[in-house]
C-alpha cells in the first residue's frame, strides 16, 4: 500500500489513501477464479501430456511429443488444420479488408448499415450459422441449385466433371469458417483504418500520385498494423475451430480441436489428446507474441 501511495505521488496524481489496495481486493475474485478454474486444470493437462504415455510413446525420447514427428496420421491432420486455416485467413482478410475500407470511406448512414450487417452475423450462434449453410448449400438446397446453374455450362464444356459439393466437404468448411471469422477481420481493420489521417492521402494526391498509387503506396502501408493483426487474430481463432468443420465437413475434415475431443472422449488416449492440446496452445501463444512484436495491440482494437 505504501508503494502504491508513493507511486501515486510520483505520477503527480492526488494520493487517495487506501484506494489502490481496494482495487486489488476487487480484482481478487476474478484472479482466484482464473487460477483455480483455468490455470490449475491447464497445468494438469500439461502434466498428463508428460506423464501418461500413449501406446509406445513411453520409450520415445520426447514421449508423446515424438508422435508429432513420426505419426503420419497426426502430421496429415496438422497439415490439414494449417491448410484450412491459411485459406480461411487469406479469404477472410481479403474480404474483410474490402468491407473495412468501404466502411471508412462511405457516409455515416451507410457505415451504420454496414456495421449492423457485420455485427448481426457476429451475434448469431456458430451452430445456427453452420446449420443455415447446410440448409442452403446441401444437395437440392436453394443455394446449391443457384450455384449449380453456373456450374452446368462448365460441365457441358467438359471443363469439370461430377457433382458440385458445397457442404460436407472442405469447401463447405472454408465457407462456414470465412463467414464466421469475417467480423474478427473487419473490426480490427476498421479500427485501424479509422486512425489513418485522411490528409496524408490528400497530400499524396497533391504531390502528383495517382489514385492507385496513393492506395498501394500510402494507404496500404499505413493499414499494415491492422492487416497483420487481423491475419494473426483470424488464424489463431481458426486453429481452434470445432463445430464448423464437424458439421460442414461431412466428417472428412477433421481438424485439431475435433481430433483432441475424439482422443479424449472416444478412445481415451489422453496422453495424445493433452499433447496435441499443449502443442496448439504453444503455437497460439507464439503467434500472439509475434503479433505483439509487430503491432501495438491497442491500436488494433482502437483503444489508442
Amino acid at each position, binding site marked *: 500500500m505504501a508503494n502504491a501511495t508513493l507511486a501515486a505521488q510520483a505520477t503527480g496524481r492526488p494520493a487517495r489513501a487506501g484506494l489502490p489496495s481496494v482495487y486489488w481486493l476487487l480484482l481478487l475474485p476474478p484472479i482466484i477464479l482464473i487460477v483455480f478454474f483455468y490455470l490449475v486444470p491447464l497445468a494438469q493437462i500439461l502434466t498428463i501430456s508428460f506423464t501418461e504415455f500413449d*501406446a509406445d510413446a513411453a520409450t520415445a525420447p520426447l514421449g508423446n511429443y515424438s508422435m508429432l514427428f513420426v505419426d*503420419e*496420421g*497426426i502430421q*496429415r*491432420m496438422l497439415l*490439414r488444420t494449417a491448410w484450412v486455416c491459411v485459406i480461411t485467413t487469406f479469404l477472410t482478410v481479403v474480404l474483410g479488408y474490402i468491407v473495412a475500407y468501404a466502411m471508412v470511406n462511405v457516409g455515416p448512414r451507410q457505415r451504420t448499415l454496414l456495421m449492423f450487417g457485420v455485427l448481426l452475423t457476429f451475434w448469431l450462434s456458430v451452430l445456427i450459422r453452420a446449420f443455415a449453410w447446410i440448409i442452403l448449400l*446441401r*444437395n*437440392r438446397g436453394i443455394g446449391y441449385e443457384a450455384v449449380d446453374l453456373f456450374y452446368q455450362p462448365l460441365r457441358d464444356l467438359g471443363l469439370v466433371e461430377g457433382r458440385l459439393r458445397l457442404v*460436407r466437404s472442405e469447401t463447405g468448411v472454408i465457407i462456414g469458417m470465412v463467414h464466421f471469422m469475417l467480423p474478427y477481420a473487419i473490426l480490427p481493420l476498421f479500427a485501424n483504418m479509422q486512425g489513418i489521417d485522411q490528409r496524408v492521402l490528400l497530400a499524396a494526391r497533391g504531390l502528383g500520385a495517382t489514385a492507385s498509387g496513393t492506395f498501394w503506396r500510402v494507404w496500404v502501408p499505413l493499414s499494415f498494423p491492422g492487416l497483420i493483426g487481423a491475419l494473426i487474430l483470424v488464424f489463431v481463432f481458426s486453429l481452434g475451430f470445432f463445430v464448423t468443420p*464437424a458439421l460442414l465437413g*461431412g*466428417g*472428412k*475434415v*477433421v481438424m485439431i480441436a475435433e*481430433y483432441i475431443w*475424439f*482422443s*479424449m*472422449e*472416444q*478412445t*481415451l*488416449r*489422453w496422453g*495424445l489428446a493433452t499433447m496435441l492440446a499443449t502443442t496448439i496452445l504453444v503455437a497460439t501463444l507464439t503467434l500472439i507474441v509475434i503479433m505483439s512484436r509487430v503491432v501495438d495491440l491497442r491500436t488494433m482494437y482502437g483503444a489508442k
Partner: protein
Amino acid sequence: MRQPSRNDIQRLGEALHRTGRIDRRQLLAGLGALAALPPMMSSKAWAQAKEIVLVNWGGDAIEFMDTSFAIPYEEENPGIDVVVDGGGPSQGKIRAMVESGAVTWDICDSGGGSSIQLGTGGFIREIDYDVVDRKKFFPGMDFKWGATNYIYSFVLAYDTSEYDTDSAPKSWKDFFNTKDFPGLRSMRKDVIAVPEVALMGAGLAKEEVYPITPSKEKLAWETVKSILDDLIFWASGAESQQFMRSQEVVMGCFWNTRVKAIYDETDGMWDWTWNQGIVLPGAWVVPKNNPAGDAVWPFIASTQDPARQVKLFELFGNAPANPAAAPLVPPELKKFNATDPDNYALQLPVDNEWYGENIARVGKDYLDLISS
C-alpha cells in the same frame, strides 16, 4: 444429485405454491427447514439405500427408460428412487468422473466394447453375476464389466424414392459398388462395425469376417478408401436422421433404430435390410465407487425381465437383450426387432473382445483414413 428426495420436496413445495395451495411465506419456511436437513439426509449411507442414478444419452431415452425400467422397479421396491439422467456417459466423462473422485453416476448406458476398454483401464466395476443372470443374455453378451441392456444393429438402409424392392442394394457389396449404385452414401464417423461392413463389401461372407487379421484390416481400409469420394460421415444418431430426411444420401450404414424412426415418420421413405447387419450390444456399466454401491445389481437384474425389455423395444426400437423376450414381441413389430430369430440369423454379432483390445488403435486409424 445424491439428494433427489430433497429436490423432490422442493419441487413439490414450489408446485404447491404455484397452484396456490400454500402461500409464499409457508413455502419459504418450508424451504428453510429443508436447508437444515442435509447434514443428516445427504450422507452416503442414505443415498446408497435410497437412490440409483441411471445415466443415458438423453432425449426420448430418458422418458422411455424411466417407463420401461425405473418406474416398475420403484413400484416393486418402495423407498428406492431410480433417477434417469440424460448426461451422455461417454468413456471420457466416466473416466474423468472416476479419477476426480466425485462419482455421482451409478449405472451408465454404455456398450460392450466400451465396457472392455473402460474395465481394462480400471474405471468401472465388474458385474456381479451372482445377482445378474448370465443365462438371460445372447451368447457372448455377458461381459466382465458390462451387462447387455439392449441390442441394436448397423444396417444397410436406402432411399425408397431412388430404389424399389428389386433395384435396392441388398448387401454391403452393393454399398461399395458406386458404378451400379451411384450417389452419395454415409457411414458412421466412429470405427465400430466399419471393418466388418467393409470386409463384406470386399466380398467376404459374414462367416469369414472374423477373426480380423492385420491383412483383413488393411483390406477393410482399402475398401473404404475406394469409395471415399462418395462417402459422408455421420457423427450422431440425430445427424444420420438428417441425412435420411433431407435425402442428402441415397443409402447408408445406419443404426436400425434411427432408420425405423425415419421409416415411421415418413411413411416408408427409407427402408432397410437385415442382411449382413452388424449386431451390437448396449451395456450397463457401473463406475468405480458409485454412490449407490451394490444396490445397482438387483436393479440391473430387473432390467433383464423380458416384459420390460419388450416395453423399451416398443417405445424406442432397441431390441431385447434377453432371448426369451422375442416371443412376447407383437407380430406386427417383428420386422423392427434386431433380435427376432429370423432377423438375427441374417446378421453378424460384433466381436466385442476385438474392439475392447483394438479400438484406440483402429479408431485413430479410421479417423486418419477418412480425413486423408
